[in-house]
């Protein structure tokens, strides 16, 4: 098992080595930079696969923590290391697996770009940051990599430096994430302070496994923890705000659609498959902190449900193919968060895994389409690409089927797990309503994806370019991801389909704390009614999309004119951006003016006055020094005489 530590560190540092090599050595050699980055990623993938072979064959709940003492202040030690368990291994596989496909795809997509080497350096840095979160053993390490992910995301969204919109989008993403991180910082501080305050310095720790022991304690410590349930639940929710920003949940979702300004593979890797999943992963990792507080979980569940619905509605009015996928991602992340709130991390991780496959596939497919149409992203100027880009078309359709949740693609199983967990939940207020929202979102998902496929690949070509199929470095990853999208569902077939029930659920048994109220909630059963409901909703969605955009029997313009105000609300994205702009202009600006006034006219006045007094005294003393050496000597002599006299008289 000693190898596990080595695997862990290889996974973590291989992409960093690639980053350093590219920035220090190969910036000038574009092709080499790309291959260095891919080599780093493949090394991490290999190590992760070897790790998976050991971890997944071990007993359920298998956990190993390898740490070194990184910083210490008094009795507080901040460790750095790798945590090897089913959760980190699975998430690592998602990041390195999908990451490898996207790195290879990028070679084709970014061909001839000016900043090719910079792109791969940033991409590798992102992989390092992301794997740092995945492998982290404690809150501080997580937080550091959490910020690093923010930075690398910023640099990649703003990759097209010369485009103002890209630079603005990068800033927006970074600042929105900062808001969440601010909450997370306070959550960590509050958690640590509460533990120190109630249990003393001896029990204070940032490590997940130490914290878990505190939360799962059934003796005296547990009793003390229960006494401070309110404070601890607040700390948990504050940490959750970090996840809200990173996983783009309403109301901190505004950055994600804008983040599509980055190159398409970046959108696929970060803003669909991995980075935005970090929030979900964090909640899974810290699930023992949520589990004792049904109220906290209710907040999580409602946030997820609301996001899933609002984002899905927005996807209908987008014309940019990437924006459709972006809102779809928001909606699916809402699904995952909903599953977390319903007390089922395995369902969330399951959907995270399958979603990473098919959403990366869809994004890369859209990238291939965009390349084919000569960097045209507007679906109104596409159409009829089915014949011209057959590989892209078929893989895109597979991704759509998986996303819509049609049997037997992977999305069917993971969506079913989430809907199942919602249908049997009895702790979240309004769980039945949220289940209804889930089914409705399944319908909407199928509908807007149907619209997207029909507009892009069917009908007549409406653009002016000459689309042709993309090169093998691009279609290869598409095919790989399509296969994964179809069969990833086999990871965790539920009870009732396979004999022993969900594999993931068993593997992730360590993730779940099990307070008394919790038992049975997460039991992953196959419910025929849930599956039929979800499937019917999805098929209905596809049918509606066909009637509007395929056969054109129903008029889309007529429909829009009937729901005018609603359509307008969607076009304006519920006025979130306007609202934030208003806050910045009206509220923040006034606070800033006031602060400026206080600083300039009060604080600076105090400081300036003190300085002026000293300057005046200095000016007076300066008159003595007129440049005549004799005066200096005389003064010095006088000083000596005074001091000597004082000393002698004193004695």
């Amino acid at each position: 098992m000693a190898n596990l530590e080595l695997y862990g560190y290889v996974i973590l540092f291989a992409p960093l080595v690639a980053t350093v090599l590219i920035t220090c050595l190969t910036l000038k050699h574009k092709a080499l930079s790309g291959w260095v980055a891919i080599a780093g990623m493949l090394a991490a993938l290999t190590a992760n696969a070897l790790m998976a072979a050991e971890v997944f064959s071990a007993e359920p709940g298998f956990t190993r923590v390898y740490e070194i003492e990184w910083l210490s202040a008094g009795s507080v030690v901040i460790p750095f290391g790798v945590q090897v368990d089913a959760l980190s291994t699975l998430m690592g596989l998602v990041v390195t697996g999908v990451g490898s496909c996207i790195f290879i795809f990028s070679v084709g997509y970014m061909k001839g770009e000016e900043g090719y080497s910079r792109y791969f350096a940033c991409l590798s840095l992102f992989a390092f940051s992301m794997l740092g979160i995945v492998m982290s053993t404690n809150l501080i390490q997580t937080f550091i990599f959490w910020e690093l992910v923010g930075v690398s995301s910023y640099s990649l969204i703003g990759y097209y430096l010369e485009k103002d919109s890209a630079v603005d989008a990068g800033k927006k993403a970074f600042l929105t994430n900062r808001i969440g991180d601010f909450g997370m910082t306070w959550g960590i501080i509050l958690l640590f302070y509460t533990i120190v305050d109630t249990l003393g310095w001896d029990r204070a720790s940032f490590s997940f496994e130490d914290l878990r022991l505190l939360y799962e304690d059934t003796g005296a410590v547990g009793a003390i923890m229960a006494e401070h349930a309110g404070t601890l639940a607040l700390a948990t929710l504050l940490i959750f705000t970090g996840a809200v920003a990173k996983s783009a949940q309403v109301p901190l979702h505004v950055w994600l659609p804008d983040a599509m300004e980055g190159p398409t593979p970046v959108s696929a890797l970060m803003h669909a498959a991995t980075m935005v999943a970090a929030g979900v992963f964090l909640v899974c990792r810290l699930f023992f902190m949520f589990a004792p507080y049904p109220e906290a979980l209710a907040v999580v569940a409602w946030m997820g449900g609301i996001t899933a619905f609002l984002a899905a509605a927005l996807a209908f009015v987008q014309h940019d193919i990437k924006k459709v996928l972006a809102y779809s991602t928001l909606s699916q992340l809402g699904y995952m968060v909903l599953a977390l709130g319903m007390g089922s991390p395995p369902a969330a991780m399951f959907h995270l895994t399958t979603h990473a496959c098919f959403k990366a596939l869809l994004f890369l497919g859209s990238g291939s389409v965009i390349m084919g149409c000569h960097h045209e992203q507007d679906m109104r100027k596409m159409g009829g690409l089915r014949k011209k880009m057959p590989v892209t078309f078929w893989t895109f359709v597979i991704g759509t089927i998986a996303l819509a949740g049609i049997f037997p693609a992977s999305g069917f199983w993971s969506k079913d797990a989430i809907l199942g967990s919602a249908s049997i939940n009895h702790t979240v207020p309004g769980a039945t309503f949220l289940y209804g929202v889930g089914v409705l979102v399944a319908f909407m998902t199928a509908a807007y994806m149907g619209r997207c496929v029909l507009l892009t690949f069917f009908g007549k070509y409406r653009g002016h370019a000459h689309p042709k199929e993309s090169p093998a470095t691009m279609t290869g990853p598409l095919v790989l991801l399509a296969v994964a999208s179809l069969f990833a569902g086999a990871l965790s077939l539920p009870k009732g389909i396979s004999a022993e029930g969900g594999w993931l659920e068993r593997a992730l048994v360590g993730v779940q704390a099990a307070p008394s109220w919790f038992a049975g909630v997460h039991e992953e059963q196959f419910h025929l009614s849930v599956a039929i409901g979800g499937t019917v909703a999805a098929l209905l969605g596809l049918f509606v999309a066909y009637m509007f955009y395929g056969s054109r029997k129903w008029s889309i313009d007529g429909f829009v004119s009937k729901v005018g105000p609603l359509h307008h609300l969607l076009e304006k994205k519920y006025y979130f951006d306007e609202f934030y702009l208003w806050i910045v202009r009206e509220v923040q600006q006034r606070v800033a003016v006031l602060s400026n006034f206080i600083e300039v006219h009060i604080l600076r006045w105090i400081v300036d006055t003190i300085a002026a007094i000293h300057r005046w005294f200095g000016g007076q003393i300066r008159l003595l020094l007129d440049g005549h050496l004799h005066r200096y000597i005389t003064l010095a002599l006088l000083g000596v005489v005074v001091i000597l006299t004082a000393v002698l008289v004193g004695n």
Partner: protein
Amino acid sequence: MIAMDTTFLASSPALAALGEITTAHYVVLSSLIFAVGLFGVVTRKNAVVILMSLELMLNGANLAFVAFSRQHANLQGQVFVFFVIAVAAAEAAVALAIIIALNRVKGGVSLDDATELKG
């Protein structure tokens, strides 16, 4: 331990009248030399004269060092004197160079002309 042979002093009738020469005598003499030097430094305008006065002050101090060195019967004072002499030599070299430069720029070595270091 360096023994100072003072027997020849006794052969002089004038000196014999003073009685034995003690450390106090040396210190008084050294103070006088130092005071003369200081007076020169404060009152004279000519840079060269000031430099010579400075040397007097240093040597006044040197004399006190040696006297006390003898009284305490150790070599520390004498070692200091060597340092002072060495430093004085260096100082003289630097100071003379400055004075020459001053002479070139101002056409004289009076310190009244060199008042650029006005605060």
